[in-house]
């Protein structure tokens, strides 16, 4: 709301600049009064949302930063400890390990869903238009509307040792590789990643498909006249023209990976050992089970800085190239 007002005032200034001496003082006053009023109305429109934003985002954010400098159990007295909580994070091996796991999750929650999403969306766009395409889109998007807790429980059953996935493996003669996927140190993270792919790929496909419909069909036509293969079209046209959409997909999925909590909490709760433990799980356990609110806040602040540090380059790259 504030941006248009600002643009208008810039134009006014330009106009004033172009016609020096033609405007008297009263018109100047009239203009600035109008601008002021519009600015005020703009702010009034923004106010309710702004209040909510301040109350539920900025205040908790600032409080979290504040708490991170204290030793506090959530109820008793708060004791100032300076940067000690941040130092503790680097001293406790389990806490640093969670950050490593979070980056591993980026591969499963972000790179694979976006990569696969691009390929699947491109295939749907090329071969499955009409009803088939709509059905495929709906089916692939469905995981987005299923509550994650329910999905996590069902995936837990599927991936259990007596579960369906192992039954299928046994039926096709691969009984030797069956394992309790969510309870195996080597496989737990990829298994959680699989759930992440299932959840996030539909979102990427729908977003990328929308982007593809905006690409001028003439580009594809001319490419086909020139004898370009599907792969050549994909690399030369689809991917470069979808940079902005890919940027959005990456942003959303990278945040989902680094700040992961729900999928992991309902499928493994961070186990086995700390194989799938991520900062989100540790923040929860520290704050609400261990009641170390200060330490949990410090980890939360670090996680936020980490997310911002990763997201800003993605945003910058996708916008820069999209323009």
């Amino acid at each position, binding site marked *: 709301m504030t941006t248009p007002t600002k643009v208008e005032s810039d134009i006014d200034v330009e106009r004033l600049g172009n016609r020096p001496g033609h405007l008297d003082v009263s018109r100047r006053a009239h203009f600035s009064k109008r601008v002021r009023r519009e600015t005020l109305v703009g702010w009034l429109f923004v106010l309710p949302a702004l209040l909510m934003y301040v109350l539920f985002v900025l205040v908790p954010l600032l409080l979290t930063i504040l708490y991170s400098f204290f030793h506090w159990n959530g109820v008793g007295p708060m004791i100032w400890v300076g940067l000690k909580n941040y130092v503790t994070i680097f001293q406790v091996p389990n806490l640093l390990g969670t950050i490593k796991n979070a980056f591993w999750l980026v591969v499963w929650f972000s790179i694979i869903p976006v990569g696969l999403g691009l390929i699947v969306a491109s295939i749907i766009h090329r071969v499955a238009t009409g009803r088939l395409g709509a059905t495929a889109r709906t089916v692939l998007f469905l995981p987005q509307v299923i509550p994650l807790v329910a999905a996590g429980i069902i995936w837990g059953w599927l991936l259990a*040792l007596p579960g369906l996935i192992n039954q299928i493996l046994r039926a096709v003669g691969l009984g030797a590789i069956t394992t309790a996927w969510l309870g195996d140190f080597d496989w737990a993270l990829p298994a959680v990643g699989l759930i992440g792919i299932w959840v996030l790929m539909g979102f990427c496909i729908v977003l990328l498909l929308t982007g593809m419909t905006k690409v001028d069909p003439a580009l594809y036509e001319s490419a086909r006249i020139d004898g370009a293969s599907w792969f050549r079209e994909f690399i030369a046209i689809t991917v470069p023209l979808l940079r902005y959409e890919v940027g959005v997909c990456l942003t959303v999925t990278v945040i989902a990976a680094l700040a992961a909590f729900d999928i992991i909490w309902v499928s493994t709760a961070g*186990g086995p050992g700390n194989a799938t433990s991520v900062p989100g799980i540790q923040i929860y356990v520290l704050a609400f089970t261990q009641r170390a609110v200060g330490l949990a806040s410090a980890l939360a602040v670090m996680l936020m800085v980490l997310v911002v540090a990763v997201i800003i380059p993605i945003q910058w790259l996708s916008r820069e190239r999209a323009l």
Partner: protein
Amino acid sequence: MKKITLASISLLLLCSIILGACATATTTAPAATQAPTTAAATEAPPSTAPTEAPAATGPNCGTDPVVLNAYFETGFTIPFDLADEFTKQFPKVTWDIKQDQFANLITTTPLLLAGDNPPDLLRLPTMVSFAKDGLLMDLDGYAVAFGWDKWPVPQLNQNRVAADGTRGSGTLYAMGLNYSLTGIFYNKELAAQIGMTEPPKTLAEFDDLLAAAKAAGLQPIMEWGSAKSGMGLAFPLQNLMAAYGPVGPINDWIFQKPGATIDTPSNLLAAQHLERWIQAGYFPPDINAIEYTDAASRFTQGEGVFTFNGDWQNAGYDAGMPGNVGFFLMPPADAGGAPAAMSAPLTYGIAANAKHADCAAFFFDWVATNDVARTINVNIGGSNPGGPAGAMMPAAAAGSVTNETLAAGPVVGAAGNSMDFIANATSSIFAQGWTPELQKMVGGQQDAAGLLQAVQAEYERELVQ
């Protein structure tokens, strides 16, 4: 009768002192300021049957309608059944019961206790930090008034917190609705298959049975281990600790006594023994992914000759495998030694600012002393209702495993070998210490010595926090 009279007199004295002190002193302990109601003591004779008016002596629910504000744990019917029966006997008392999962209670209890409408009665997931923050009612006054302090000793100790935050002695902050007992349940049919005619008397005999089960192609032990439920191997590990060494140091560690450590030579032997069981394949290969409920149902379906669990599961086992489940205490390492067991109260407390503390305390007393309440406790809860020595002990249904767990209780009590749970030492030692480290041991990523060192390090970190 003599005790009751003495209690009434001391109560009257206490109250008159408080009334006198009211004008000048404001630093009285919470228990004293929450002086139990005494009006009824002089109005009704002690022998009045508890039909309309509550019991006559000591704190009670008064004669006006009372709505008790309670928070119970989801999934366990016992407090709800006791509450219903209480209202039947005392129609003036009704309930406003909210319930939540145990894991959620851990996170919400501090807020509930510190909030505007603190519960009169609530399931306490942990208590030390709440007690230190002054959020829990000091129950010592009630203990004197009702004579709880005369009950057999171990019952109240686990609910006592000293000024320095150590548990096991000090001020009473909670009461047990019942007292659970843990040990080893076994599938009678499968046990017969491996030639078990009577429960093992030593650890070596138990080892032989496990080896026989493995050789027979059976699953020797069913146990859970998913981080979602918390690692069930803490049960056999603690039982092994008590088999190899005395229970005193284990309780000291759980109660956070200064200088206590879990990393002792006898505990190392226990952890090494557990490691051997893991390596021998006595636990399910997918244990790290098995949740508590899955383990219970797989055991009732015949997967597992033995399982380490507590008597709260009695009703489930009786229903799932009627007549086919037995129970014995973990045998000692040496012949002639006394068995030990983890035993813990089903802990309930009263908020420091509760509106109907007297009525809630009266409920605690009623649960332990009323015959109907005790019967509900045994038949539905499956656990010992505790209470005064010589109180009526209800008989469980014939063929129920509850008969075996009830019989085992006094054996542990007589030996003085009762322990709290190593998972309860701090609020997150289970989630941050035992569970991940035991899971690593299953995965071959941690050995016995490393397990104890890692848990001790986490314990010390949490105590500093």
